């Protein structure tokens, strides 16, 4: 049967692809960490990791920013989720928009915006100093935690508000009937039901926090985490230490893996109990409570979106060289137009190519996973977990380790950047395609077959039209991740393959915030457009951004 052959070929190609793009790079990282600079097998790197205080510190710092980010995101996210889903908040949709803005804002532009406001020469800090209030600059671990909390709270907010608005009100009413006070109800009934959502959202924040490279890099001022240590060791002009960089990468993968597994476990428990018949109603608060709820929600929302607001404003400020002048102008955009066209073009072509690949390959493999259960698809499903646990910086280093020498040399090419984005985002598409396919009753295709169509025609004419909107939406969301990707590109880029996020990073290091802000705004507009298109195709569904 030809059908059998087609899927066998797909299966084999999928494994080959995973092998080349995933197992070889991960394997190279492992192998490289077990050799010294001159190529002799050794475990010295790990001993060094265990022995040197510098690495201990980075390890501890990673956990600190991870758990700190988790706590901060939990705090902000659950307050916001609780207020928005239980009280009538004016402009509720706008608040959700602010959360989305925080989520899709270009990486670490956040960090820099906060420096602009609260750094050593920060605007707000200067203003406060004039008022006689002296506050420390935002650098160090405190600053990192503030930025992480504000950047990652939407994960908690989106997860928990989803769960909260689906808690069956009958349960709370039943508890009320049994004589529980509102406080008891909250802790005994509602809290246990949203607990999985809380932990799943919080762990998502933690995973992103420990993988984040830009924020500690810009705000840390000596506060190093594993991600920055790996990058420093890799990129040092003198004495670049690849084997030590890969050792740290392995440690980072292991740490990340623990939390990813935990997160997935909690997500699976996060099934909504609601039968949707008796949905909770929002209460209209009165007096100071109402004011308090609004202040809390808008404070969190606006603070989270602050970096975006700042960079949009600053992108229009008049500049002289890198220095801001008073007044507004389009100089920063002119600079992009005249000097940075290739960077924008790179970003667009790389992202679009990666997304096209992701959509095509992801859909075919998704079909394979959903429909050909007789193949060993459980194993395949498991293999697709690997990219989830790989922080971007690690993917970058792994690709360098794998494709620098040997049969396939890709370093310095556009291909390597595209492939790194591709492999990181592919699992999402595979999963969403597979799950939307599983929701379509197989009898639909059987009906078409009974009417005289071949199985392939039936799939093409009946099933594909049903999943295409979801695929387009997923592709758009992949585009958002692809075009904002910094950490792996930072390892993989060369002069001719520079992308917008990399350029923004370098501009900030050079102190040219005007151009960085303008580039960020361009990124933001592209991301916003993609999210808008995605929502057009699948309905406004913030959960899909997680």
């Amino acid at each position, binding site marked *: 049967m030809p059908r059998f052959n087609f899927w066998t070929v797909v299966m084999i190609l999928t494994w080959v692809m995973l092998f080349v793009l995933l197992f070889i790079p991960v394997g190279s990282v492992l192998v490289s960490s077990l050799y010294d600079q001159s190529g002799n097998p050794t475990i010295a790197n790990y001993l060094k990791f265990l022995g040197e205080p510098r690495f201990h510190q980075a390890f501890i710092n990673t956990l600190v920013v991870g758990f700190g980010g988790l706590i901060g995101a939990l705090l902000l996210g659950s307050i916001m989720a609780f207020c928005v889903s239980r009280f009538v908040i004016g402009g509720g949709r706008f608040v959700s928009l602010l959360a989305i803005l925080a989520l899709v804002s270009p990486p670490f532009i956040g960090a820099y915006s906060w420096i602009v406001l609260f750094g050593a020469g920060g605007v707000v800090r200067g203003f406060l100093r004039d008022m006689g209030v002296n506050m420390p600059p935002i650098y160090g671990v405190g600053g990192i935690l503030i930025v992480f909390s504000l950047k990652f709270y939407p994960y908690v907010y989106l997860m928990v508000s989803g769960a909260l608005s689906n808690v069956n009100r009958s349960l709370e009413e039943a508890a009320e009937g049994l004589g529980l006070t509102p406080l008891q109800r909250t802790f005994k009934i509602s809290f246990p039901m949203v607990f999985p959502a809380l932990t799943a959202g919080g762990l998502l924040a933690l995973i992103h926090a420990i993988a984040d490279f830009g924020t500690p890099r810009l705000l840390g001022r000596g506060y190093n985490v594993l991600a920055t240590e790996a990058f420093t060791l890799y990129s040092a002009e003198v004495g670049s230490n690849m084997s030590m960089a890969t050792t740290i990468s392995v440690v980072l993968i292991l740490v990340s893996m623990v939390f990813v597994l935990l997160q997935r476990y909690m997500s699976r428990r996060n099934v909504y109990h609601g039968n949707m018949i008796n949905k909770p109603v929002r209460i209209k608060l009165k007096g100071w409570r109402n004011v308090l709820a609004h202040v809390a929600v808008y404070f969190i929302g606006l603070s989270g979106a602050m970096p975006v607001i700042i960079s949009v404003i600053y992108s229009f400020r008049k500049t002289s060289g890198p220095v801001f002048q008073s007044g507004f102008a389009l100089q920063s955009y002119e600079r992009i137009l005249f000097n940075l066209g290739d960077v924008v073009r790179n970003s667009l072509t790389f992202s679009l190519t990666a997304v096209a690949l992701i959509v095509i390959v992801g859909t075919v493999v998704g079909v394979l996973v959903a429909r050909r259960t007789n193949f060993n698809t459980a194993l395949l499903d498991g293999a697709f977990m690997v990219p989830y646990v790989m922080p971007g910086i690690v993917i970058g280093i792994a690709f360098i380790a794998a494709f620098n020498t040997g049969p396939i040399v890709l370093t310095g090419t556009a291909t390597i950047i595209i492939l790194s984005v591709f492999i990181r985002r592919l699992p999402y598409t595979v999963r969403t395609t597979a799950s939307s396919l599983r929701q379509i*009753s197989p009898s639909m295709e059987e009906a078409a077959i009974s009417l005289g169509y071949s199985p392939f025609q039936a799939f093409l004419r009946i099933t594909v039209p049903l999943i295409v909107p979801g695929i387009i939406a997923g592709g758009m969301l992949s585009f958002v991740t692809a075009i904002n990707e910094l950490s792996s590109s930072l390892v993989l880029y060369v002069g001719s393959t520079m992308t917008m996020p990399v350029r923004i990073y370098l501009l900030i290091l050079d102190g040219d915030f005007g151009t960085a802000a303008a580039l960020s705004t361009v990124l933001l507009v592209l991301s916003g457009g993609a999210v808008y298109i995605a929502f057009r195709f699948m309905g406004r569904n913030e959960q899909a951004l997680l």
Partner: protein
Amino acid sequence: MTSITLRSLRKEYNGQVAIPNLDLDIHDGEFFTLLGPSGCGKTTLLRMIAGFNSIEAGTISFDDVVINDRSPAARNIGMVFQSYALFPQMTAAKNVAFGLQTRNIERAESIRRVEAALESVHMAHLKDRLPGEMSGGQQQRVALARALVIQPAVLLMDEPLSNLDAKLRVEMRDTIREAQREAGITTVYVTHDQEEAMAVSDRIAVMSMGVVQQVGSPAEIYRNPANRFVAEFIGKTNLIVRDLHQRDGVTTLDLGEGVSVDVTSTIAPGVSGRVQVSVRPEAVRAGGSGLQAEVVEETFLGSHSQIRARLSTGETIEFLEFSRRASLWERGEKVVLQLDTEMLTYFDAETGASIMQGAKL
């Protein structure tokens, strides 16, 4: 017009036998129903006929041509699914037209046939609705039209009515029966609802655990069940155990309390000993002479009541009585049950197989 012949058919799911060895002849143009309890293999068998299930052994023939290796698309079947399986992105008319599109039928002819098909299921007025905008019954009508419009050799339906409410089910089964008669298509219909099966079928195959227990017209399987399983599954019945006595070439059944029946001409020759007697509710009447009993419970059901009584042997007998104006039966009230001995059927006490004359022993 097509007849279907199944010979020595076997189906396994990963080594688990679902249908061990099945033979069946479905005649040209008949409405044939597979009836049996959940998990007995009805769907499995239907999907084998459709070509969606593999066949481990045996043959399926349409008009004496073996079609085991023919793909479902090439079998010229119409199929109606329990879940309707309408294409959600297409209107009713487009759904119905979908099967005609692969068949190279002229546009005008296609439009005419789609309209006729929708008309036959009384859905012409909703032809531009999407499935999401139709009720379950309306969707199932469209699904039926979609299956009929391609003029299939065989129409296959798997519990098409089980997602509908009770009243709609009765209405829909008339529509189905009507449409099938009109088109004269050989139809295989799956249900676990015996009343539905009786109402629509020309013939019924009663299945249990992958084995056909009996094939016959509704009246045949009701009046003359091949075994205890069929007697209990089709309609209601009371089973009591009694002894046969043989003297001078006359076989009598002793019902107790001096009541006995001459069964020489009803029971197969040579049977003796313990037998199970199936007493249909309608074979029981209160009053006259017969067996002593005590009323246990009466359930008032509107037009009639269902009364449960206990015999002096401790066995329970249920029977029906048309509602009277007078008061209901009291619990514990004495009653005499008269049995219509013409309507009794008999089974071997051990195997449960029918021991009626003419039954295959």
